[in-house]
């Protein structure tokens, strides 16, 4: 049967229109509206994602360096060893920070947080809650990204500050408090904090984009981790094509790179910071391209 023959409803034309909810004084437009929408998203994201049991693995990962430093402090106390000189501790701390905290803790923490933001909601079939709201897709993505950055930034910054406190406790480091609060340690701490936040932005954008474009983000994450880890073995030009090279360039103290490392000049801060931010912007643009075309087809996810 051909079907689909139009049959107007009796009286349909005479019925008054209910009218849409027109944006009025209570519903702002433009930037004010987007700010309000992003604010609402952040509130929801923090509640449903970061203050729940599923956040536990990421919190545990963030606690790992703290546990490491606590064990060191405990061993120090048990052995009754003399506190380490502050300069030596600063060198040891930068090893922990660059090789363990940034490369593994922040990397995997961001993976857990940012890939879940969209991909996790697809897997849980709850993404339509957002996509049925009158939010521009770009604003939706911005809300997700900002929420992720706030959560990850707070978590890793807090972890870093506790690590610094533990590392430079007077019981573990001779003159540690003076070094950290009045000496060069304060500037170093600020640099580590800045690098941590920059790492959250860089890796966050990376994993948000990966989560949108790739159904199983584990595979690209493993490849990226490998790339970041073998970075020091690569020719200098290729070394610069990694997030970790720019982050390490911003760290206040260098780490020994081993006999097989190929020397590459650190990127100066005035290039490293915008470089990571530009990379993040490019990745977010890729994510926007994908999110604009996003459909709700949970069955195929």
């Amino acid at each position, binding site marked *: *049967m051909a*079907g689909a023959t139009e*049959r107007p409803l009796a009286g349909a034309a005479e019925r008054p229109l209910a009218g849409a909810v027109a944006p009025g004084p209570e*519903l702002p437009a433009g930037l004010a509206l987007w700010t309000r929408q992003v604010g*609402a998203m952040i509130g929801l994201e923090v509640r449903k994602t970061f203050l729940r049991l599923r956040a536990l693995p990421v919190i545990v990962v963030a606690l790992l360096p703290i546990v490491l430093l606590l064990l060191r402090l405990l061993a120090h106390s048990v052995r009754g060893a003399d506190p380490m000189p502050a300069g030596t501790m600063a060198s040891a701390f930068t090893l922990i920070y660059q090789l363990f905290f940034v490369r593994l803790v922040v990397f995997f923490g961001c993976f857990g947080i940012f890939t879940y933001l969209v991909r996790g909601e697809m897997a849980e079939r*709850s993404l339509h*809650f957002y996509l049925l*709201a*009158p939010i521009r897709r770009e604003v939706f993505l911005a809300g997700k990204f900002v929420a992720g950055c706030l959560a990850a930034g707070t978590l890793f910054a807090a972890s870093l500050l506790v690590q610094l406190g533990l590392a430079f406790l007077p019981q573990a480091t001779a003159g540690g408090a003076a070094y950290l609060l009045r000496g060069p340690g304060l500037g170093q701490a600020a640099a580590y904090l800045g690098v941590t936040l920059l790492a959250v932005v860089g890796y966050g954008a990376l994993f948000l984009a990966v989560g949108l474009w790739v159904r199983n983000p584990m595979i690209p994450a493993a490849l990226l981790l490998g790339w970041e880890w073998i970075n020091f073995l690569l020719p200098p030009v290729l070394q610069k094509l990694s997030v970790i090279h720019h982050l390490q360039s911003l760290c206040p103290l260098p780490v020994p790179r081993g006999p097989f490392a190929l020397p590459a000049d650190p990127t100066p801060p005035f290039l490293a910071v915008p470089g990571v931010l530009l990379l993040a912007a490019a990745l977010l643009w890729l994510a926007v391209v994908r999110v604009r075309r996003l459909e709700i087809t949970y069955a195929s996810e």
Partner: protein
Amino acid sequence: MSAPAADRIVFADVSKFYGEVLGVNRIDLEIGPGITSLVGPNGSGKSTLMNLMAGLLRPTEGRIELLGSDLGRPEEVYRLVGYCTQFDSYPRGITGWDFVHLYLRLHGWPRAAAAERAARAIERVGMAAAAGRRIAGYSKGMKQRIKLAQAIAHEPRVLILDEPLNGLDPLARAEALELFRAEAAAGKHVILSSHVLHEVDELSDRVVLVHGGYVVAEGAIEGVREEMAAERPLQVMVRCSHPGRLAARLFAEDHVVEAQLDADKGGLRVRTENAERFYLLLNRLAAEGAVEIEQVLPADDDVQSVYRYLISGQAQGAS
């Protein structure tokens, strides 16, 4: 008279494929204000049609307009549309109140205004007492009602309701139907899908029968039946004094396809290709005193029968 395009949902030659799998195919459809029901079995394409009209899916081919708006602009479309989806998953850990209130906050409403609207919507669906509980602990019917509250909370012009009566108890069903009628009476577009056919039969201003990804018929229920009559005989139940005599007389008519006596010999079931001629003949025979008519009932004027006709016809055509 057709309503203007700005007051209609228009599907123009729309197809949707999920890879190689057909969702819906070559859909031409216009939906005006009032209650429109999409009727069809599971997997027929109802939800795909709804997701397309709500902008959650994009057509593989063709064009969809919703009240003149471009579906590619969610910031406009979802002020017009409230969608009660079939998806039974919710953001983790949230309560019924959060579900509606946060949705309004995402619209941009300030906290107090959002709270006022959320309270009103939740009250309308009878969920005020349970709104503070987590959705994860809700029954199926409560989940349906809170989804309904979310769909109506921003007072949209278009309500899309995918199987909205699933899981509702009889009282809640009646209340929901009343709510749909009220929304339609306010001039809104209420599009719902259901396989509980007798409910939509009485409720709907029009039905869209969907099968295998195709719209097989569309219009007012009586209209669909008339549309079919040229191809498919109308079936009428006649209770009368001399059914055998009536059957013999009817067989002489070329428009009568079948006349089958009831088991109790108190009536017969007639299938005719021309309802008008059949009723004229019946009146004449009654006037002549050939038979005494007790009751005449169209046997297949409800959606269920129409749908059964159509689908069985399709199956026969395919075999």
